[in-house]
């Protein structure tokens, strides 16, 4: 691959945003789960729920810190890498990002302090409210940023004068055609990611026999979520796909590896898309299924990539990423149901009898990450060559930096991110094994440690 500055700028942005999204994906979902633990504790007074809260809030805080610092990077990268985007679409993108800072960032960052360190200083009710405010803040944040991203995919409510975008209707900008689908798809993805994270780490603790009184309950919480939300995600995903077909048919054609427009198009399960030859090699096809899924009719018309000469996204990455996302989604449904089937019929003492479920769950700990990244690659690479779909090309807004500068900083970022990712997973392992001892700075910590021993 030739490394021109444009490609390097895209790779750098991709590296930053891929690393960033890992952590909000966890925190948006995990915060609602923490609120659930907190409410259960308040209602029942059961110490196990408090233990679950205090164990998971540590992981939440660590994930949140990684999300914050990588998010700050994002807020600068719009300007350092894509100044043209802000100069052309700033009238629309600016206020949406501004509302994210004003309504979400300060809320979550401020009340996080109380959530983490304020238990002794505020009333039980205030602590609960702080937890709820952080959860609301993370969700607001997702609302605004997904609104902007969706607008870039399906622009609406604008007019263009001399190449610059102006707003005609804020309502249409914010609630643009793809926004509801993308927002709920991402929120649900976040809840699922968090569900598999809490199940995975709990299962790992059960396998290592370091589990506490709350481990089984936490696993059940995750299993119940996965059982309901994984099928829901497939349904939302289907609706999202129909919406994409309407507004971005080239992306769907790349996802499905369809080259010629067809009625009754077959569904390609696997194959090797070849952009030069404009065909998919060794394709395994199911007749008419693509038409059925995409148009909900056996003989519906599906447009092929050849219709969109010059404005097609890179086919292979979109095609493969889509299969990874769907594959993990299906796996999540199966494992989620399996987990519920076992966990809701068995008491904690039976954990030794289900080693395969525990292994499967702990293998799936970070499955949400892979599915979310794959999903974002589908939608973002699938939007290319546009930065604002159909209106503004990515190549038009790139900054003018030397390839060497971009290469150097790209390597710096990637090196740093690999180091941080390893440290993050190592810290999770460490916390999972020695939850109380590592943080026993106050007598209170010993209390929990004791509670854990008594319960186990």
């Amino acid at each position, binding site marked *: 691959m030739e490394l021109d500055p444009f490609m390097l700028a895209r790779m750098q942005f991709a590296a930053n945003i891929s690393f960033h999204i890992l952590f909000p994906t966890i925190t948006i979902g995990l915060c609602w789960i923490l609120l659930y633990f907190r409410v259960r504790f308040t209602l029942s007074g059961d110490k196990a729920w408090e233990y679950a809260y205090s164990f998971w809030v540590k992981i939440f805080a660590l994930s949140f810190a990684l999300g914050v610092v990588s998010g*700050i990077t994002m807020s600068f990268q719009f300007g350092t890498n894509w100044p043209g985007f802000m*100069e052309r679409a700033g009238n629309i993108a600016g*206020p949406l990002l501004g509302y994210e800072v004003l309504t979400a960032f300060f809320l979550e960052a401020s009340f996080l302090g109380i959530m983490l360190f304020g238990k002794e200083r505020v009333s039980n009710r205030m602590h609960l409210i702080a937890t709820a405010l952080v959860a609301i803040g993370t969700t607001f944040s997702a609302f605004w940023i997904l609104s902007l991203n969706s607008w870039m995919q399906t622009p609406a409510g604008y007019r263009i004068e001399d190449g610059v975008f102006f707003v005609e209707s804020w309502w249409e900008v914010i609630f643009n055609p793809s926004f509801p689908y993308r927002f709920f798809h991402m929120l649900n993805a976040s809840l699922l990611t968090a569900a598999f994270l809490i199940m995975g780490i709990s299962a790992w603790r059960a396998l290592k026999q370091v589990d506490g009184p709350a481990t089984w309950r936490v696993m059940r919480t995750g299993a119940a979520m996965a059982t309901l939300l994984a099928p829901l995600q497939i349904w939302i995903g289907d609706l999202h796909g129909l919406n994409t077909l309407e507004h971005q048919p080239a992306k769907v054609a790349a996802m499905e590896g369809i080259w010629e427009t067809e009625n009754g198009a077959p569904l390609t399960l696997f194959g090797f898309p070849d952009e030069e030859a404009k065909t998919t090699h060794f394709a395994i096809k199911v007749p008419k299924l693509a038409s059925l899924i995409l148009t909900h009719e056996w003989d519906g018309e599906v447009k092929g990539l050849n219709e969109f000469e010059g404005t097609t996204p890179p086919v292979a990455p979109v095609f493969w990423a889509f299969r990874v996302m769907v594959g993990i989604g299906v796996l999540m449904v199966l494992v989620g149901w399996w987990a519920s089937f076992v966990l809701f019929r068995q008491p904690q003492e039976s954990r030794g009898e289900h080693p395969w479920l525990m292994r499967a769950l702990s293998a799936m700990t970070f499955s949400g990450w892979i599915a979310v990244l794959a999903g974002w690659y589908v939608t973002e690479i699938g939007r290319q060559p546009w930065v604002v779909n159909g209106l503004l090309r990515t190549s038009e807004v790139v900054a003018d930096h030397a390839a060497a500068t971009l290469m150097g900083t790209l390597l710096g970022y990637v090196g740093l991110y690999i180091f941080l990712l390893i440290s993050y997973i190592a810290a999770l392992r460490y916390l999972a094994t020695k939850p109380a001892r590592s943080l026993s700075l106050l007598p209170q910590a010993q209390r929990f440690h004791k509670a854990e021993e008594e319960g186990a």
Partner: protein
Amino acid sequence: MDLSFWLPLFFAGAMGLALLIYVLLDGYDLGIGVLLPFASDDEKDLMIGSIGPFWDANETWIVLGVGILLIAFPQAHGIVLTALYLPVTIMLMGLILRGVAFDFRVKAGDARKGMWNALFAAGSLIASAAQGWMLGAYITGLRDDTTGLLFSALIAVTLPALYVLLGSAWLLIKTDGVLFEKAIRWGRNALLPMGLCLLLVSVATPLVSSVIADKWFTLPNAIGLLPIPLITATAYAGLVWLFNSPVILRSGYGWLIFAALTVICVMASIGLGYSLFPEIIIGRLDLWEAAAATESLLFIFWGTVITLPAILGYTFFIYRVFRGKATALSYD
């Protein structure tokens, strides 16, 4: 009322305010990061404990400052951040390192605590210096000749000294005992370099830019502006006096140091604002040329008017909840 005139002015003020609050708030926690290697292990925990509930929200003010630049002055945002690409990247890496080190140092196991402490300090120093460099480059109108680079280097040294002072001042409010005495010493040591640099910056700014020189040294402006250097000098003299009268600091007046530093920072901001106005990038672009469309500004104006007081309100609330002397933090 002409909105296309007033709205850019409002957002320039809001941006200045956000960045001033950033310097004061994140300044003290960055300064504590820089000071960390000079403390014993127990003191390190206490120092980190004193900033624990706050640093996250403190850092959000720079996101707001840069956010307003992006929202209200998209043209300037692109030019400034493209020109400052390298220092911005370096600052971001510093902020990333220190932000995560804060959590990792107590969550990754005792064996690695030393490494994360070192990364916390290094990240804080790198971020502070890079911010100084950016400020310097911005004041010169993004010049990249030798004078411009020298000037940026000068501010890259100044800003960490200011942050160290703010960090010491914070410790004088939040701690007592041995650490308190150390904070007095640290603050006293940082005072001279900071004062010297402040003086150099004040002299250098008009030298670097003739536009700025004209604004300050013509009558009658010069007389009207006199309070700015006078108040700054008085506050600085107050700092010197307080640091040499530790008995006052020990009897519960440690907060006076932070107050005096706030006065200096406010004066510096007013001075800087006056120097720049009405330009947003000296010699290239004024506020109104760089501004976004009026309807976009109006949309975010209402959001700002409603949320900013709320943000200030709950920030005040958080500081009240965690008032008093700090303890080493536990996540349990």
